[in-house]
């Protein structure tokens, strides 16, 4: 880059450090330990997972001071392709996502133990091994310096989650796995890869650069094709119509749904969209071609339609999945506004929604472990039996709806402001409608759980339950209940102390 170009984009000091590579490698290093420990020594196996999770989180956290001070932490692994080395470059947004994913992995590891042992699932070694690979891949996407590195880890994540989705090795798992691959792998090979290569042919550079790398003078059609090939090709973002894999993937064990299908995998999708829009295509470039509007409306449609479908779902996890699709569209919407505030809102929502939605999934899993129930219509009265779980569920749901004082309000407010600043009042209205819809699909669950009547309660009151013990449903094991409580507290804390996240996302609180 010549000096003029440096002056144009603003000079960002780089700090070469191996920390990003180590943070990505740390989970992979645990895999041999996990496999060798095996089913025979479960505690040793889970110790490896914890060691890797904590190490990885600490490594990510060590980069925090440098990034907050305004520099980029970079590391080049191998010069694989011209214009696209296998390299890491950690900036605020990447670190924000990496911190979220690696912190929640620690919590999910606790939860996994409670859930998998509570249900005596088979093949737990395979489960923990591929879980570690998946987290490594998600961190790789977060810390990637260029589109090629991002794509590499994106694909690694697709493949590593397949055995987790298909974990039960039954017909349902097979069907879900097939659908999962068809959307995720099909999208990335058929759309994202050609789009990436056309960017490479057009610009010769795949590094994430503020303002984008595409040469000026391309037609709106060409750039639009590339943009939408990325948006739909990164099917993990679940922008309609590329969303159908997510509800199907809910057959996986709940910790997978929690960390991967509420945090890592889906957020990798929207984060990739963020990277492509801001770092490859360029906000100004897209705004000049009026392509932001198209993406705004695609995401608004996804947001509303997914919320409407969520209303009809009786399976709790599927309802959560459709809610996730709607919430991911918020992130895409924030990115599509093409303004700094929109971007900041999108990035904040990645973290805020992650904490809220993972809480909800933990609760859904805890309910399944404790009561064996997975349908909304059969949750009556469970709130009184499992008060901690449902208190956490309530906080998570309020965050998704966007009620203060929960984290969800913070990021939604930024996106709302971003939409208002660009005079898109239709979008503001749509955001309000979407919040109402999420209230409509979450509040009935909570009300039924706390105030509804349990089927066996009625039997007990009628005297038919005589001779039977009172309903045996109690709170799930401690390892299943503690994680949702922790993340629910995070949801509350992030409302009051979001400063660091704001600084990472590059906006003033």
């Amino acid at each position: 880059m010549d000096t003029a170009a440096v002056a144009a984009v603003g000079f960002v000091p780089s700090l070469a450090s191996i920390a990003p590579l180590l943070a990505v490698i740390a989970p992979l290093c645990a895999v041999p330990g996990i496999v060798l420990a095996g089913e025979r020594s479960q505690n040793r196996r889970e110790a490896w997972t914890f060691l890797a999770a904590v190490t990885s989180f600490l490594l990510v956290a060590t980069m925090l001071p440098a990034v907050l001070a305004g520099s980029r932490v970079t590391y080049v692994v191998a010069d694989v392709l011209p214009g696209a080395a296998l390299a890491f470059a950690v900036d605020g947004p990447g670190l924000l996502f990496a911190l979220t994913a690696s912190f929640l992995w620690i919590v999910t590891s606790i939860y996994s133990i409670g859930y998998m042992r509570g249900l005596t699932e088979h093949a737990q070694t395979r489960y923990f091994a591929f879980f570690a690979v998946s987290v490594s891949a998600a961190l790789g996407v977060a810390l990637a310096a260029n589109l090629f590195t991002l794509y590499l880890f994106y694909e690694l994540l697709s493949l590593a989650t397949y055995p987790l989705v298909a974990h039960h090795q039954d017909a349902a798992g097979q069907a879900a796995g097939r659908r999962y691959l068809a959307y995720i792998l099909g999208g990335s090979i058929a759309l994202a890869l050609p789009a990436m290569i056309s960017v490479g042919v057009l610009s010769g550079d795949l590094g994430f650069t503020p303002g984008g790398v595409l040469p000026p003078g391309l037609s709106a059609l060409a750039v639009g094709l590339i943009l939408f090939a990325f948006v739909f090709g990164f099917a993990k973002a679940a922008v309609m119509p590329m969303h159908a894999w997510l509800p199907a993937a809910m057959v996986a064990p709940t910790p997978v749904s929690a960390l991967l299908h509420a945090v890592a995998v889906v957020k990798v999708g929207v984060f990739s969209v963020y990277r492509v829009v801001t770092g490859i295509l360029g906000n100004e470039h897209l705004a000049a071609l009026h392509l932001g509007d198209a993406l705004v409306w695609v995401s608004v449609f996804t947001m509303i339609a997914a919320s409407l479908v969520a209303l009809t779902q009786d399976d709790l996890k599927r309802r959560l999945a459709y809610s996730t699709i709607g919430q991911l569209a918020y992130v895409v919407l924030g990115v599509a506004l093409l303004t700094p505030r929109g971007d900041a809102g999108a990035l904040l929502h990645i973290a805020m929604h992650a904490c809220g939605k993972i809480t909800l999934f933990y609760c859904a899993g805890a309910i399944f472990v404790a009561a064996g129930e997975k349908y909304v219509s059969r949750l009556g009265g469970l709130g009184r039996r499992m008060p901690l779980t449902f208190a956490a569920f309530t906080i998570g749901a309020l965050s998704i709806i966007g009620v203060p004082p929960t984290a969800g309000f913070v990021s939604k407010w930024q996106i709302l402001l971003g939409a208002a600043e660009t005079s898109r009042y239709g979008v503001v209205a749509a955001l309000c409608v979407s919040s109402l819809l999420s209230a409509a699909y979450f509040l009935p669950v909570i009300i039924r759980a706390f105030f509804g009547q349990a089927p066996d309660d009625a039997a007990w009151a009628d005297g038919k339950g005589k001779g039977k013990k009172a309903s045996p449903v109690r709170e799930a094991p401690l390892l299943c209940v503690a994680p949702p409580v922790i993340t629910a507290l995070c949801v509350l804390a992030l409302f009051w102390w979001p400063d660091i996240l704001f600084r990472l996302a590059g906006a003033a609180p």
Partner: protein
Amino acid sequence: MTSQLPILAVAPLLFGAFAVTAGRFFYRRANYAVAALALAASFSASVLLAVSVLTQGAQVYFVGGWPPPIGISYVADPLSALMLAFVSGAALTTFLASKTEIETSYPLKNSAFYALFLLAVAGHMGIVITGDAFNLYVLVEVAALSGYAILAQGKDRAMLSSLNYLFVGSLGASLYLLGMGYLYIMTGSLNMADLSAIIAAQAPGGLVGVTALGAAFAVILAGLFIKMGLFPFHSWLPAAYSFCAAPAAALVAPLTTKVMAYVLVRMCLSVFTLKAAWSVPAINSLVVFLATAAILYGSFCALAQKSLRRMLCFILLAEVGYMAGGVFLGNRAGLTGTIYHIFADLLMTLCLFLAASNVERATGGRFADLGGLFRRMPVTAAALVMGGLSMIGVPPFCGFFSKWYLLSGAMAAGSYGFAGALVISSLVNAVLFFRLFEIGFFGRPGAACGPDEAAGQARPGAVPLFCDEMPAARLAPLCVAAASLVAMGLLTGDFVRLVADAVLPPGLG
């Protein structure tokens, strides 16, 4: 620079073949060791040669001390030196992995097999290293004749298929000879460097644009396409490679098509020069069209196969299309893609055919019998997964990078049909391999494994680990082949810089 290493890479094989043939009358038990020693010597010489060529520049050996253009020269430039190392390395790996397989497949004739094996490798090595166009024809016949003989020994229709291959292959070689005759009449020379100097000389001496030269090129191309198995000259290939014994397929499949593709590149770069090779637009577009057809035909026929090795044979047809098309896209990226893919596909085919040979030994290789494969043969299955992912084009496996360059070339040249075929082939490969993985992951194992009463009904997870796995002597070479896929991928930058850029004319866009 003259050096002895080029001949030292080939000579041990020839002497080894004679030694093995003679040895069967004296001390038959030493034959395997003698053959392995010959291959190892040839591999070591090739590696030394490759290292010294890459560090010090091209090396030449004059056979019999006769300088060219009268005598035959063996020319080691970065491309041919590295190709030698790959060919001999692949042969050695196959030979080491197939010891038990050879002894069971050819119980009475294993000495004959060793001799033919060495001769076939010697032929392929000679084709790569020779700098004389007529000597190349002789070596093509050496490689082919020994190939016919080892492919003919197998089950079912092996002999008929090999006979068919003999007829078609002889036709291909004859066409090559005919084209060389044209060139000899025009130039009076058979030495490649001499030929290219005469062809490329400035008018009036230069031959670019002369009709007879175009005819010679077209005839040679037709011959090479037949030997490569490019659609529609492919019909001999699947039959010849699928009925023969596994070691023969694992030797010939990685070598023959790739070495003939190497000859194609060599002809275009070092004999006709790119100026003449690309001078007829009709030939360029026809070859790219045939390559597109080959990719689609191979991919879709592979979908219809019911056994592992036949599926691989049809994938091979598609890969031949990759290599032929890249040469005639008319730009640097396309040619780089072909050169890279020759090496990458050699490794992928090697890995997959070795894995297939293990799978066949344990299960018979029909898809229906592969249930529970991941638990029965974890190491072989892992190698199969790595080979499959490379074929699909997942980074960091080498298959991704050949696709990268070929797609870049196709897009830069505006050959969207070829680009589309590449993407479709990736998608079809994903279907092919994940169908296989699904059977291995979800399928019920056959009666071959586990307690009798559990066979057929056992949960996929209940199969004992490693119950059908091959001995370590077969697995170690397979693991080396699988690991090489990642190594090759990560070294792409160096490969392109040291090999492709070294042989491609500077200034080629």
